[in-house]
Structures are given as structure tokens and as C-alpha cells.
């Protein structure tokens, strides 16, 4: 019995030490990426290429998802507002839901699944096939040449994708609320313009999407770089990227929302 209790505490201790050690390694890795980011901006083509792969290639899923989320918001919002006779506030409901919360959060979750997992798999496979070692042996630092451009590509792409998600969502809400159901178009746009504040709503949404972009890109490049150099290792790292960055987005969203919209 005592042995079992002891081994339980040993396992908990070992797991905790391992998790703290890995977190410390991830933090040092993040520092290295920032220090070695110079070439990502001096040779901007390297970063723009990653913006294309992370951002442009994620456009379809972001735009289509944004449109449908906006359409659902239009339907649900109209149904709820109609009970209180406030259908004309539909534009406000749709736009505030999107720019404050759904835009950054859902775009972040989709970005983690589409682009984050691809970044992890690519770096992990480069490691497994010794491409990173080969680069290092050519006196080219793989963190500067491979990791940093992918990190900054993700950080730049994420706010743009979140903005496009919100824009498509508003369009979806308009299509359902105004075109399909017949809410007044002037009220839809007019109330939206009057109620959405640039600093409080839009800027805070942009800040959220930048923070999520940093978190997802950091997790994605770290998991790829730290993956075991086997097919199974890359597979596990890709899964970890999606799970960790999704949880990070939701946790960070709560913290940021409580800081931004507390009072």
C-alpha cells in the first residue's frame, strides 16, 4: 500500500518536473526565436512566403467559416431580439459578438488547426529527415532560417485572418437579417456604426488576435522543433499543437476579456 502511495507521488513529481522543465525550454526557445528574428525582416521574402502559407492558404476556411458563423448569429440574434422588439439592434449584436469575441477566438482556433498543425508537421519532418541538421552543418542557424520566419508569418497572418473572419461574419449577419428576414437595412448598419467603438471594441479585438497569433505560432514552432524525429513523434507533436494552442486561446481570451471589458 505504502509502495503504491510512494510511486503515485513519485509519478506526480516526475510529471511536474518534466512539465516545468519543458515550459522553461519553451521559454528559452521563444527568447532564441526573438533574438534570431533579424533575418526574418532583413530578408522579408522569407517571412512573406510564410504569410502566404499560413495566411493566404487559410483564407478559404476562414472566409467560409466567418460567413456561416455570421449567418447563424443573424438567425439566433433575430430570434432573441424579436422577443423584446429590438430587431433593429441585430447589426450591433452581430458586429460586437464578432469583433470582440468570435472573430479572434474562432479564427484563432481555425488558424491553430489549419496553419499551426501544418507548421509543426513541416518543422518536425524537417527534423526527422535531418534537414535541420544539414542546415546547421552548413553554418546556417535553423532557428533563424526556418523557425523565425514561420513564427512571424503566423503572427502577421493571424490578425488579418481574424479581421476577415469578422468582416465575413458581418456580411453573413446582413444576408440573413436584412436580405432573408427583412430587418431594416438602415437600422442594421446605422446602429452598428453608432455602437461599435473603435478603441474599446475593434482595437481590443485586434490586440486579442495578435496575442493569439503569438501563442499559436510559438506553440506550433516549438512543438515542431522539439518533436521526436520519428513519424509517431511528428504525429504526436501535431496533435499537441492543436490541443495546446486551442486551450491557450480559450484561457488567454478569458484573461484578456476580463482585463479589457471588466468595467
Amino acid at each position: 500500500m505504502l509502495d503504491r502511495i510512494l510511486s503515485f507521488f513519485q509519478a506526480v513529481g516526475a510529471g511536474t518536473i518534466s512539465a516545468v522543465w519543458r515550459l522553461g525550454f519553451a521559454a528559452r526557445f521563444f527568447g532564441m526565436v526573438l533574438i534570431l528574428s533579424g533575418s526574418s525582416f532583413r530578408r522579408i521574402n522569407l517571412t512573406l512566403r510564410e504569410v502566404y502559407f499560413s495566411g493566404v492558404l487559410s483564407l478559404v476556411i476562414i472566409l467560409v467559416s466567418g460567413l456561416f458563423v455570421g449567418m447563424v448569429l443573424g438567425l439566433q440574434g433575430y430570434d432573441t431580439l424579436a422577443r423584446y422588439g429590438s430587431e433593429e439592434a441585430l447589426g450591433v449584436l452581430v458586429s460586437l459578438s464578432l469583433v470582440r469575441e468570435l472573430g479572434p477566438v474562432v479564427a484563432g482556433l481555425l488558424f491553430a488547426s489549419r496553419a499551426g498543425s501544418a507548421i509543426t508537421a513541416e518543422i518536425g519532418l524537417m527534423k526527422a529527415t535531418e534537414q535541420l541538421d544539414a542546415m546547421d552543418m552548413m553554418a546556417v542557424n535553423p532557428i533563424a532560417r526556418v523557425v523565425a520566419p514561420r513564427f512571424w508569418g503566423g503572427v502577421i497572418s493571424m490578425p488579418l485572418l481574424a479581421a476577415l473572419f469578422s468582416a465575413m461574419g458581418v456580411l453573413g449577419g446582413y444576408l440573413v437579417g436584412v436580405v432573408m428576414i427583412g430587418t431594416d437595412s438602415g437600422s442594421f448598419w446605422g446602429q452598428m456604426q453608432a455602437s461599435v467603438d473603435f478603441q474599446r471594441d475593434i482595437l481590443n479585438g485586434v490586440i486579442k488576435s495578435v496575442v493569439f497569433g503569438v501563442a499559436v505560432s510559438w506553440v506550433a514552432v516549438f512543438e515542431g522543433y522539439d518533436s521526436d524525429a520519428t513519424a509517431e513523434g511528428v504525429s504526436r507533436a501535431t496533435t499537441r499543437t492543436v490541443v495546446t494552442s486551442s486551450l491557450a486561446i480559450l484561457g488567454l481570451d478569458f484573461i484578456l476579456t476580463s482585463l479589457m471589458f471588466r468595467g
Partner: protein
Amino acid sequence: MTKILDSLNSSSPLVDVRDLRFGYGANDVLHGVTLSVPRGKVVAIMGGSGCGKTTLMRLIGGQLRPRSGKLTVCGESVPELDRNGLYALRRRMSMLFQFGALFTDISVFDNVAFPMREHTGLPEVIIRDLVLMKLHAVGLRGAAQLMPSELSGGMARRVALARAIALDPELMMYDEPFAGLDPISLGVIGQLIRRLNDALGASSIVVTHDVQESLQIVDYIYFLSEGKVVAEGTPDEIRASKDPWVHQFVWGEADGPVPFQVPADTYEHALLGACGA
């Protein structure tokens, strides 16, 4: 600069390893290896799987740090170099990885151009000519626009070789260059290693367990077993060797100083003991 000139003029070996020890955790891999690679020569490091050959090469390239011992390349003590010093040294050496390690997202041409674009700042028109010359040297000028996924194993190895000689290194290191190749590709790679070494005036280290092919192209051979040099000599000396270990390895005998059976309890005890239990 003076250091580089000194290392070029010096008659000392290009790579000098003295009593080198290395291990992972409690597991010792190298137990005091001593060897040297003279300038202009092709030296093979042979031994069975897991004897520490590739580890030794990674130590020479500075990818790993030894526990103790002396290791100098081009007159520089590798374990004492910082990151910048190591990268400066690595611009004078090159490594061919076992399966080529080509960058799969860019073409053959761009793979060979990669080190030139990263390190030289040469205009694109000159890089183009240099890349075509390197690819011509390995017989793959016609494959310049192919992607790595379109190459056979032998072709990928040759492209990696062209990339490895892109900056005319002083030291070439080959990690199992013959592994998994058909006899024709194997012969081609072997001849390229010898020819490029002589043409570049470089020194080469070939880590391999392909005995017959290596004996034809190398100048000197070190045999490694259990993390130590157990035999060495020229190809003729190795062929004539009466050493039981060398004999077993060169002629591929199943049993000898390297036992067929992994050490275990006696066979009778294992079988009868199990019945008795």
C-alpha cells in the same frame, strides 16, 4: 586570417582526435578514441552498427561535445569553439547525410545554390553557373529543375554531394554514403568521393560499414568497436590482416570476436529452466 593560412601551410593532420570520450547519460559511447586524418587523404571509419562511428563524426562537426579528450579540426579545438567560431569552421567543412537531407520544398538547383546564397552574396548569374558546374560534376546537370521527390535514392545522394561541395570545403564528411544503393549507384558515389576529394584538394572522412567498396577508394581505415579503435591500416594492410576482428568484419563472417549470440543465460538453462518452472 593568419590562423587559416597557418592551417593551410601546416603539415599537421587536418583532423586530430586524441583520447576522445563521449557518452549519453550513464551510457558511454566512445572510450578514448585516437585517430587522425591527413590533408588530401580519404579516411574510412568502419565498424558495426552502434559502435559510435556516426557519433564520432558528429563530434568532429561540433554537433556534440565530448566529455574529455582533444579534438582539433583545421587547427581549431572544436569543443572550445562558441557558436560563431563553430559556424566559421563549418564553412570550411561539409557533411553528406545518410539519406541526403535535401530540402524537400525547393528544387535540385535551389538545394545546391542554398549554401552559396546564404554565405557568399554572389550575384545570381554567377551562382547559376556555379550550381550547374557542381551538378555537372556529379552528372546531374539535366536534373537541375527536378524536385527532390522526383529523384531516386542514388540521384538524391549525388545532389546532396553537389550541395556539400558547393563552397569547396577543406573537409568532407560522409555518413554511410553507400547505404541502400544499387550496385551502379554505389560505384558512382564511391568514385565521386575519390574524384571530388582529389579535385578539390580536400580531406574526406567516410563513415561506413561497406567494406569492399571502401577498400577501393580510401587511403586509410580505422575500425571502431565498442567505442574504441581496434584496428587500423591501409587497404592492403587490412586485406592481409590476420587480426580475427578485422578478418571477421572484412569477410562478413557471422561468428567470431563479434559473437552471433547476444550475451545471455545458457541455452540449456533457458529451455530446461522454463520447463522446470
